[in-house]
């Protein structure tokens, strides 16, 4: 057995890794995350900015790091747009331009009508020169980004009005996978110009070298996909809510319906199945965080909880929802507690099983090593 393991064909290991990642990708387990202080600091910083602040996002990564950094880009964009800030996108990587398009797609799809190009956000494209580019725009943005990606002068856009250099922005977000990236932003923007406030999102590999910069040079940081998942959890906690009246009504009704034959958990499970929703959204129900529901869901809830649908609509209206003149809310509309908006959280399942497999392989490898060593000593 020991010999077979010693000479184990590495294709078996490859197969095990494939299964460890593929199975959770298909099953999509929901693993809850709590924001750690380093991630919460980023969230709180964005929350504290007054509405209409100007934030520059530097997306310094390419498709190789997109699975890890893409969710950060999307989560930052959503959060900043929810807060009504002006967004300026740049990249210091030639292959980073399409990453800006990912953010623009979020603004166009989820904030359609509320966010328009030029008024609320700008794509400034690629800036050549690595750290020299950062040094240059720290004192004069127009020297490198005189025009946007469409070739028009920045002065013609409201989104960049009054922004002459990085020092005029309210926050700089560096999402970086290497060089140039967060380290260069700290060294050439944040440190020489203390008025430039920096937060970052980095890959797991490049996170350890950035830790010494927290919390002085970097206000906060999203380290790796776990950092992105924690940020999504923080976003869901605040922007997965609508009010108190509806949750109070539903929770009270659930308590009323609990009997010796049917526990609260069973009732919740029945409701989850009837609504065909995920555990995260159901958690929102239980903790009193419910968004404006589509009428179809209201009807289903009314049936399961044996309650008048109008009572639910009245409670939702009290929470700020508007069902007047036949208005309805699309399913999953802007409820950031939903799994479909939580790409990073969904990736924590494959990450967990891959980590566990790695640990098992290390243990197994060392077991064989010590067994072989004992055999050699006996000889």
């Amino acid at each position, binding site marked *: 057995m020991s010999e077979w393991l010693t000479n184990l064909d590495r294709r078996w290991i490859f197969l095990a890794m494939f299964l460890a990642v593929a199975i959770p990708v298909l099953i999509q387990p929901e693993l809850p995350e709590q924001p750690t202080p380093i991630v919460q600091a980023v969230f709180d910083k964005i929350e504290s900015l007054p509405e209409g602040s100007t934030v520059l996002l530097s997306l310094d990564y390419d498709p190789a790091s997109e699975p890890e950094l893409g969710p950060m880009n999307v989560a930052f964009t959503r959060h900043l747009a929810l807060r009504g800030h002006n967004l300026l996108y740049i990249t210091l990587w030639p292959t980073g331009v399409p990453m800006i398009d990912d953010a623009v797609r979020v603004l166009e799809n989820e904030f359609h009508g509320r966010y328009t190009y030029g008024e609320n956000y700008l794509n400034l494209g690629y800036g050549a020169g690595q750290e020299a580019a950062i040094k240059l725009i720290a004192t004069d943005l127009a020297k490198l980004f005189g025009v946007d990606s469409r070739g028009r002068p920045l002065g013609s856009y409201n989104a960049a009005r009054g922004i002459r250099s990085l020092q005029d922005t309210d926050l700089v977000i560096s999402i970086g996978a290497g060089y140039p990236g967060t380290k260069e932003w700290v060294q050439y923007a944040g440190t020489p110009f203390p008025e430039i406030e920096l937060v970052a999102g980095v890959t797991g590999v490049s996170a350890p070298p950035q*830790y010494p910069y927290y919390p002085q040079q970097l206000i906060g940081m999203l380290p790796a996909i776990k950092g992105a998942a924690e940020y999504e959890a923080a976003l869901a906690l605040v922007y997965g809510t609508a009010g108190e009246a509806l949750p109070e009504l539903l929770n009270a009704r659930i308590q009323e319906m609990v009997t010796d034959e049917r526990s609260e958990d069973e009732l919740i499970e029945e409701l989850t199945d009837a609504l065909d929703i995920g555990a995260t959204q159901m958690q929102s129900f239980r903790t009193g965080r419910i968004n404006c529901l589509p009428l179809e869901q209201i009807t289903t809830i009314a049936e399961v909880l044996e309650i008048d649908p109008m009572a639910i609509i009245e409670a939702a209206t009290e929470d700020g929802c508007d069902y007047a003149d036949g208005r309805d809310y699309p399913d999953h509309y802007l409820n950031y507690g939903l799994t479909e908006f939580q790409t990073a959280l969904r990736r924590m399942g494959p990450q967990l099983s891959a980590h566990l497999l790695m640990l098992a392989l290390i243990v197994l490898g060392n077991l064989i*090593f010590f067994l072989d060593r004992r055999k050699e000593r006996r000889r």
Partner: protein
Amino acid sequence: MKRTFPLIIAAVAGYVMVVAYFMPALQQVREDAEEWFNILAAIAMILGGASILGMHLRKVSDRRAGWGFSVVTLLGFIVTLYVGLFKIGVPPMPEYPDRAWTGEYIAQGGALWWSFEYIIYPITATMFALLAFYVASAAFRAFRAKNLEAMLLLGTAFLILLGRSYAGTLLTGWYAEDYPNLTLPGLTDMIMGVFNTAGQRAVMIGIALGIAATSLKILLGIDRSYLGSRNA
């Protein structure tokens, strides 16, 4: 002259940047020099392109080992350059429907966008994803507790791998309220925030001192390796 002139340029540029850093009156000179750097970087990109072309063309013409790969490189280079520079397939901007070249060079639907979306994107993502398989194989074959240092490394890897996933919360979450720093995520944070930060700072300070010493050697003309091996 061939050696002295570049030496003088490098030394003068270096001294100007150092002096300008400490003298606010010379701030404009410093900013101008930074702009020159960007222009030079753009020119260097052209030189780099020419160098790639020359190197691979020579390899193909000499039929050296692996010349087929050079043909692929050359084709990729030339086609990308052509479709990018001439905005092949790029739709014009809605405001100027009659002007073919008004669209962004990487606008959706263009040939460059297509090559990025369907060639570069999957290739680079695949290359990176393959790492997971090789790291797993390496973990099985090479990560051995042979001595004390290796055991420390192994122990840290265990804590981080568990602490940075849901396993950490699952295994130690039950006493998180009483002893948050002793949970796996808590220990991971401590390793990253204390041991890692201390080590990284030491490395950073060492590198910074090394850069300062090397820069001084270049400014004084002692280190000439940047001029090429024959001038070192």
